[in-house]
Every structure is written in C-alpha cells, then in structure tokens.
C-alpha cells in the first residue's frame, strides 16, 4: 500500500519540515505538497498500514502497537504546581503514521459558534482563563466542509436543530443505526430532545482505495484494516505521497528545533531508529506533534536566545492552559440483546445541551451526549458490570454472560475551562528512553467542569430511565488525571503576551515557525476536537501557502 516517495537529504533545505503525521500534520503535508512545496514529515512512530493493524487486544491495548509507550516514554502527574509530580501514565496519543487519527472513535462534530465566542457571551469566569478565539465559526466553516468532503465524513445535514450553518451537505449518508442508537433515539424523543445520526469520520460508502465500514466492531483504539476510518494516513498522507514532493520519514523522534543567530528556525533535530541524531534543514518548521509533545518540543528547544523555550519569550504560556474535555459515562442494561459490539462506536448523538444558560444552571459550559458501546471483552468483564455484581463466582459469571450483549453507554462529552496552572511541562527528574526530559502533566479541573459533567450525566440517567433500562449506573465523576484530548497548550491569539501563535498559526516570536494541532485551541469545544484540528489544518495550509508565495516566510 505504500507509495514511492522522494528521499530528501537532511542537508537539503526543503520548504517545510512538518513534525508529526496525525490529524493536522497529515493534512498540512497533503495541502502543502499539493501546492507545490517540498515537504518532509518527521513521525516519531513507525510506518504501519492496514496490513499491520490487528484486532488483537493484546498487541493493540497491551503492547501499545499504535500509541505512546509508558515504559519508553514515562510521564508524571501532579494536581497543582505546588505538588511534587509522581510517575504515572498521564496521557495516551497515537504513535504511528497517521497519529491518533488511526485509532480514534471518529466522532466528528463541528464546533458551534459559541465555542469561539463564549467568553464574550458569559463574561469572565473566576479561576478560569477563558478567552475568545481570534477567528470565528464563519472563518472555519469552509474548512469544516473541506474536511467532510476530502477526508470523508458520514452524516445527515439538517438533522440537528442546533447545528451551526453549513455550506454543503455531508458527502455520504450516515452509518447504519445500532441498537444503542435506536434505544437512545426513542428515549430522547420521548423526553422532547433532538437525537440525530452521529456524524462520523467513517465511510458509509466506498471511496477510491477505501472500503465502506464492515462493522467489525474493533474501532476505538484499533486501526481500520479496510481504510473505512478516515485517518490522516488513508485520507491525506496517501495523497501527499502521490505528489512526489512529500517524504514521510517514520521512526524519527524530533527532540529539538534549531535556530540561527537571527532567531529563525533552521530545521528539526531528530533521533532515527538507531538513536543517531540528524538535522533536517528546512525553510520553515511546522509542529503538529499534539497538545503535549508540541509544547514539550518547544520547551526542549530552549537556547540562549529563547531561555524559556522556543517561541515562549513574549507570553511564557507554552504548555499552559491545558484542557482535556470534561465528561461522564452512564451504562444501562436492557432486556434483549443489543449486540452492540458489532459495528462502530456511536450511531446517535444529541446536542440539546450544547449551550446551556450559565445563569440558569449555575456553571459555564455545555456538551453533547452519545450512545455507544466499545468495550473489549476482558475490559468489559473487569469494568463494565453493574457495581453491585459479585466479583467472582456463578453470579458474576451469570451477569457477565447476560450483560455483554445487553449493555450500552451514554457518554456525556463536555467543556473544560482553561486554567493557566493546568499544563504540560518538562519533568525536572524523569527522563525517557532517549534521555530527554519526560512530560509532566499538571491538572485540576475547574469546578464548573465537574458541574457540567454531573449535569449532563443526570440527563444521561434520565434518558436511560426513559429507555426502560433494567439497570443503570454511572462511573464516579472525579477530577481527571489522565489525558486523551490534548488541547490549548500553545493557544492562538492576537496578543503575543497571552498567546503563542497568531491566527495564521505562526508563532509570535519565530517568524518561520508554525504550530497546528490541539495545542492551538483557545477553548475546548464539547469533547470532539479532531474535526476542528483538521479544519484548522486546512485553513493553516491556505494561510501558510499565501505567506510562502508572497515571500513573507523567508524574508
């Protein structure tokens, strides 16, 4: 499946070196190489393709086939900057060509207008660093449409009365409904809510070189063997490779962006598979390494000119304002088999509570609910049985046998408010297997984040009641200590004193250094960031192309 690519020498000054091949990096590679530029993409993980993916729980979940490895890349966690961080697995992200878009759920919600202007609407929130984006929904709308059509998103336009305006319908109909979706839809309608077919970055119809979804059920956490899930690998990188101008260089772990005496980036230093270090020279550097690794790389690139980390002189906020997305999960058991392990994760969602009245509910935020099932068998037995189930013995066995096909979840996805103390930084003591400083996560949810999770979860329980669940329960809503969505750590803004990049994704401090991924976010959205990461990447590609063509980057 791999396409012939150019092989650039590291001494070749290519137009762009892109660090990271995930949701943002893949799209920037496609767009910039299509626009005629010479591009090298450095990906720390291996180049895996459909043939390498597997339904084997052990390899995927246990051996971290597709994700960062806790032994090679240990991390630490603390709740506040006053605490001493303890070593624990603090985050997960994709670590192969295609990044996290290889194994994600593929819930593809657009942001709504409110996500860009919430601060203006609700005012300052004590204890939160809530600000508005320098761009608006209308600026991104054409790029959301581009994502849907170019990457491949299934859905039904106009199905939700809460949807923001769109210029085009989805390119293909929604995926089939699952039993969890039917149960969710009927109950929600009974309650007067507006459930609708979930927009998913999974093909309901085949595209050239890609199959429609086979409903295998190994979706979240797994790579798609038939190319139905719209990863950046199958949907963007393959296009980039066909231009003949883009080289994807896997097993290339970037540890430093080098700068010259003028304070401009000259390229990216990386370890190859054998841990030898190389410097790929480029006219401009674009970091798409995710909301944890992007700030880490900037902080690791500190030098005499940039003592607090690259692109961190003006603001000092690199790594700060981390948002993880709040949320909650309720589970329900039903009389008849749903067999919800078949298919994909989600077929119905609702956005009635996307924008809540802060005055009425007493907190800032909102979110969406989805109907899903995605537990793997061992995980289900250990974690998805009702809490009053005996832990062993014939009653345990009976409940396990009864419930596996009859259980579904209602997952509430919600806002996180930015707090400056929440961050990714360099651990002062712990090193990874390459001798680099480990990631240290500092995180404590804003009280409103826990309130919105609780409020939405109460709706989820109402829904399960209305659906006639024979049993329902929730996981405790507690402060987060583990990160999946990595947002806000190099936020976009007009003011160099409070943000890291401008609305062109250009760092305020380094003219030929651009950042684009979850770190660019100013607010968290309602729990499904990938669609917006990709829309930002398409938009960034247009902005960067314009700057490069006008000679502005190299000037």
């Amino acid at each position, binding site marked *: 499946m791999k396409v012939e690519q150019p092989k650039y020498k590291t001494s070749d000054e290519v137009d762009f070196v892109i660090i990271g091949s995930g949701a943002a990096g893949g799209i920037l590679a496609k767009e910039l190489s299509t626009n005629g530029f010479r591009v090298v993409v450095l990906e720390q993980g291996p180049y895996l393709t459909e043939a390498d993916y597997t*339904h*084997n729980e*052990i*390899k995927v*979940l*246990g*051996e*971290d086939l597709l994700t960062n490895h*806790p032994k090679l890349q240990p991390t630490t966690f603390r709740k506040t900057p006053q605490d001493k961080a303890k070593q624990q*697995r603090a985050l*997960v992200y994709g670590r192969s060509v295609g990044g996290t878009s290889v194994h994600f759920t593929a819930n593809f919600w657009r942001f709504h207008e409110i996500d860009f202007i919430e601060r203006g609407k609700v005012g300052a929130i004590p204890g939160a660093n809530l600000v508005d984006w320098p761009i608006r929904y209308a600026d991104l709308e054409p790029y959301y449409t581009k994502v849907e059509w170019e990457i491949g998103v299934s859905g*039904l336009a106009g*199905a939700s*009365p809460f949807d923001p305006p769109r210029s085009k319908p989805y390119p293909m109909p929604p995926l*089939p409904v*699952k*039993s*969890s979706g*039917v*149960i969710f839809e009927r109950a*929600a*309608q009974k309650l*007067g809510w*507006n459930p609708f*077919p979930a927009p998913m970055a999974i093909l309901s119809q085949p595209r050239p070189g890609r199959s429609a979804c*086979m*409903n*295998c*059920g190994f979706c*979240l*956490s797994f790579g798609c063997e038939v190319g139905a899930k719209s990863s950046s690998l199958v949907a963007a990188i393959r296009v980039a490779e066909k231009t003949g101008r883009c080289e994807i260089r896997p097993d290339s772990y970037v540890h430093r962006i080098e700068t010259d005496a003028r304070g401009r980036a000259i390229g990216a230093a990386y370890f190859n598979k054998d841990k030898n270090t190389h410097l790929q020279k480029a006219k401009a550097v674009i970091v798409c390494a995710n909301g944890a690794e992007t700030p880490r790389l900037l902080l690791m690139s500190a030098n005499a000119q940039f003592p607090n980390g690259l692109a961190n002189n003006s603001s000092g906020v690199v790594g700060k304002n981390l948002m993880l997305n709040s*949320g*909650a*999960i309720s589970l329900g058991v039903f009389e008849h*088999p*749903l*067999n919800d392990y*078949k*298919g994909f994760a989600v077929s119905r969602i609702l956005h009635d509570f996307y924008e809540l009245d802060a005055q009425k509910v007493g907190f800032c935020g909102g979110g969406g609910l989805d109907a899903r099932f995605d537990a*793997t*068998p*061992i*995980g*289900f*037995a*250990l*974690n998805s049985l009702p809490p009053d189930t005996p832990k*062993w*013995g*014939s009653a*345990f*066995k009976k409940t*396990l046998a009864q419930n*596996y*096909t009859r259980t579904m979840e209602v997952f509430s996805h919600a806002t996180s408010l930015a707090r400056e103390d929440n961050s990714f930084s360099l651990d002062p003591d712990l090193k990874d297997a390459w001798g680099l400083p480990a990631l240290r996560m500092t995180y404590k949810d804003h009280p409103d984040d826990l309130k919105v999770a609780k409020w939405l979860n109460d709706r989820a329980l109402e829904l399960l009641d209305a659906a006639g669940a024979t049993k329902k329960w929730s996981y*405790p*809503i*507690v402060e987060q200590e*583990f990160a*999946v969505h990595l947002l806000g750590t190099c936020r976009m803004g007009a003011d160099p004193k409070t943000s890291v990049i401008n609305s062109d994704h250009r760092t305020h401090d380094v003219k030929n250094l651009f950042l684009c991924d979850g770190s660019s976010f100013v607010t968290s959205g309602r729990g499904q960031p990938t669609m917006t990461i990709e829309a930002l990447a398409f938009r960034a590609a247009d902005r960067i192309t314009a700057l490069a063509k006008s000679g502005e980057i190299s000037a």
Partner: protein
Amino acid sequence: MINELSRRRFLSQAGIGVSAAWVSAHWPEMVSAATHAHQAAQSGAAYKFEFFTPAEAVEIDALSARIIPTDDTPGAREAGVLYFIDRALVTFGSGDQQKYRDGLVELQSAVPAKFPGVEKFSALAPEQQDELLHTIETNQTEKAPRRRRLNSGQTFLEALRVATISGFLIDPEADLGNRGGVGWKLIGREPAHSFQPPFGYYDKDYPGWQPAPKMADKG
C-alpha cells in the same frame, strides 16, 4: 474523571498500580501463555508445569474454578486458565511469583483455621470454598469506588481474578484465546470480523431516522 480512551485501555492503566503489572506490563508473553494453554489442552501427555508445583496447580485450579465456575456452561477450567496462569508466572507475570507463593501459603493456613481437619483449599466442598473466599474478601478488601481502572495494590486473590478473567476472555483468534473460544461463547460474542445490520433486537425493525416531533416548534 473517566476519559474516553483511558477506560478502554484498562490494562495499560493497570500499569499505574505496581501489582497490576500482572496483566499490563508484559502483554507479549501473555500471547505465549495463551498458546501454551492451548498446547497443554491438546497434548494428551501429563502436563509439566513451569511455575507451579503439581500440588500448587491443584489449588490454583480449584481457586480459578470458583472465580469462573463450571456450571451448565464451561468455566475457567474448560478454558485452560490454569495453564495460562502458569505460563504467565514465568514470563510477563514473574513479578507476581512471590505474591502467588505467599498467597497460597496464607490461603492454606486459613483452611484449617476455618474448617478444622481440612488441610487444603482443594479438599473443601465448593460451598465451603466460596465461604472461605468470602471471609477473606471481607477481611482484605475495602470497597473502592468503581472506576474504569484497576485499583493498585491488588491482593493475591485480586491478581488471580484478573488473570482468570484474562485467560478466559482473551481473543481466541490465531491460537491466542480461551480454549475452544468458550469465554466468547459464554458472553455471546460471535468471532466474525464483519457484520451486517440489523445487529441486535432494537434495530431490527427501525423505520429510518425521523426528526423529533417537537423539532418543528423549536425552529
């Protein structure tokens, strides 16, 4: 807070707790352990245990058979869980060897304390075995909030429970799985990798998506 991926990555998450390394730390060898269980099941010859003494094996077999008992359907015993665990303890689970050795000794001493005259757990009637396990469970474990993570500091019995469930429900494909796929049969999971709707009872007669009746009013 439970995160979307972390909860499904229960095994990786278990790595946070030292003793939960049982399942999380060395998954690759788990494959080997499962394969081993298959081979053990298929060979007619007397099985040579790699970690357990024959006497210990009898006790582990009895214990795992209480965790997932054999009743009208196959249990841990039929799935070859004992062999899976034996292999695990000389490979990825070797860090738990002492826990098993100590745990077995402790358990055996508890047997005559509760049932005078009986020396071995395996010699108890199933009802007595359950009674003893309940006593130990009540004494040892506190009710932890149920989260999508394994708690750290697992006891011998908790480690054995996780191992038994893993050996019972592991993917049977490519020779990796529970013997004869009995675990997946029990839970009703078809082994195919491609399905067509309708998937279950509730989507069988689904007429197609319609907007909520109230939608028109809401505008």
